């Protein structure tokens, strides 16, 4: 204590310098992350000429609000948004149910071959998606006959190894005493899971929900592969329709990107606290 008291005046400038440096680095990283969003937003308000001008302008000279109306009229957005929300909700709910049950089993139940099965499950996570894309496509279109439906964008994603792993890590951290106490009170596994484990796991559950929902919201390759008609296609395919072979309308593309990304930003702003907590509690780093 004495040495700390003595060294305080000398450490103060060093601490200040360290804090300032930390903030400078954080501000720089924040700018790097935020700048593409800023760029998207200002380009969405620019005219075609201003959007393609070099050197570019950092603020729009005139606000072209009509870009949003033009972009909105250029694709079947209401249908695309509805499809996306339906798919995202179905996948998220389904994945939460399967992942919670599987994670609980791996974390708190004892059964023969548990370790081996869990390792096998993790091993499937190492296989790149590109390697399984065509076999999966053949499976769902040729054998399950689910091509060009909403279901084909939901069913293959109802289980996620990553979510199981994330939840298992958290469930392992719940003290055994709580399980013992619940047992004494006459609770079975499902009751314990519902009344004790899940309420203690809200941040992790929100994290899984966000990661899953955002993953579905951003998906492009699989929906493009397995769907053919706008009636069942999601927003990202709508975005792709702004690309042409011979030219780009950046201002319209950015206007569309703005309203496509808006729901994600809103959700993230409200849920970011849980996302950070969830990742921190499971000990997983990005």
């Amino acid at each position: 204590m004495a040495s700390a008291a003595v060294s305080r005046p000398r450490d103060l400038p060093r601490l200040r310098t360290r804090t300032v440096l930390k903030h400078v680095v954080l501000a720089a990283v924040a700018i790097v992350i935020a700048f593409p969003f800023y760029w998207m937003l200002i380009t969405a308000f620019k005219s075609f000429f201003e959007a393609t001008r070099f050197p570019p302008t950092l603020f729009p000279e005139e606000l072209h609000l009509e870009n949003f109306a033009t972009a909105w009229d250029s694709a079947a957005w209401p249908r695309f948004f509805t499809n996306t929300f339906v798919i995202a909700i179905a996948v998220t709910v389904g994945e939460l149910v399967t992942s919670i049950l599987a994670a609980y089993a791996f974390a708190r139940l004892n059964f023969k071959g548990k370790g081996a099965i869990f390792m096998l499950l993790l091993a499937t996570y190492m296989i790149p998606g590109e390697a399984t894309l065509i076999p999966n496509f053949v499976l769902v279109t040729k054998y399950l006959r689910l091509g060009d439906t909403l279901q084909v964008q939901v069913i293959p994603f109802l289980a996620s190894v990553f979510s199981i792993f994330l939840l298992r890590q958290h469930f392992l951290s719940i003290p055994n005493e709580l399980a013992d106490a619940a047992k004494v009170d006459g609770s079975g596994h499902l009751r314990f899971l519902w009344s004790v484990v899940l309420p203690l796991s809200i941040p992790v559950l929100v994290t899984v929900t966000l990661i899953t929902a955002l993953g579905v919201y951003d998906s492009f390759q699989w929906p493009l592969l397995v769907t053919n008609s706008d009636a069942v296609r999601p927003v990202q395919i709508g975005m792709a329709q702004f690309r042409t072979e011979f030219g780009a309308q950046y201002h319209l593309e950015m206007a569309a990107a703005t309203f496509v990304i808006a729901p994600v930003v809103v959700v993230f702003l409200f849920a970011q606290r849980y996302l950070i907590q969830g990742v921190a509690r499971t000990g997983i780093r990005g």
Partner: protein
Amino acid sequence: MRMKLAIIAAVMVVATACSGAAAPAPAQSTQADIDLSGQPIGLTLWHTQTGANAKALQDLVDKFNSTNGKGITVTLQYQGSYTQLYQKNLSAIQAGSLPELAVAYESFVADYMKADVVLNLDPYVKSKKNGLDQKSQDDIYKSYFDTNRFPQFGDQLLSFPFTKSLLITYQNDDILKEIGKSTPKTWDEFEAAARAAVKKGADGKTTRYGWASNISASTFNGWVLSRGGSLMSADNKTVAWDGKEGLASVQLFDKLLKEGVSYVPKGFDYQTDFGTAKVLFVQESSTGRPFFKSSFKQPINWSITNIPQSDPAKAKTVQYGANIAIFKSTPEKQLASWLFVKWFSDAQQTSDWAIKSSYMPVRKSAADVQSLKDSWAKDDPQGKQAFDFIGTSYPEPNVRGQQDIRTVIEDLLNAVAAGKVSDIPKALKDAGAKANQILKDNQ
């Protein structure tokens, strides 16, 4: 007796041979000659068109659906970019879920033929009942047929022209006038004009370039053809662009970049650069016309001309654009698909498509269609200028492996542009060797 038998046998052989020559057997009826019963036939066409082109295509398909009188209904389905469409078709081959028709580049068709899923259109073109008469066949540009014939597959006609265009030069006439030059016909004239167009600001930075040289395998192929070179050997087993014409092309590309006469544009920047008079020449697809026009903040005088040549009397450029392939299905669906493709290539339809999409019409007689003439006269004189060069456009190779060879060429050009190539002749030879290995692997 033996002599008599021999004479009789010889007479019979000669008589048989003569009778065969004098009275040919009647043409065999094929699946192209069947009658459609009038039962509804649904067809799906996978395509890549977006925006105004997608709407124009839908309008034409609606017209076909309501007027064909045979119960044929075509449904359009957008499948992303050409590459995404190609990958989806490869997946669909595995799953047995191909559509009846798909837009395809020649290299795609060659790959689909690994699975033998593409319909040979020769019997359909030749069909007395449902085909194209000789006049009609002659009306369609020969090179459009040539590009859809595949030497690796017995010269069969495996696809039909759909979205055709060609490599041409976009030229700012105002700048050309300012520097006192006329439209360059040869590569030397082109180089001189490009050099004269360069302007620098007070700070020494270039404010105007002579040439926006895009990196594209197709453009490179055009440079080789325009210098009198070939892209493939006669037997189609090795590439031929690694010869002196290819070398001259890469060396000029390198020289003008190093001297600051040209630059490699990013994305579609060359359009706005052209529209704001920051560059004299751009070599691009003729279909880019509306995008160039939309980048003109102030009206400018501009025109379309052929790419420079070694011998303008034997001008050659590259033919661009995709085709439609019909996949094997039932005889009825195959014929219905062909009838749609044939209808789409009729003078009126190909003209309507050309007006709305800026692609080139596939028939010479389109030049006589009033609506196209009006469009050229009123809105699109450069469209007519490009149309007049169709006869000089030649297809790129349609051999299996061509898709990968394109990457080899573009890798070379990128390396040159990045200043990473010190020995261009060796780099070109190496690229040729790599391409030949790809061809060998794909035999």
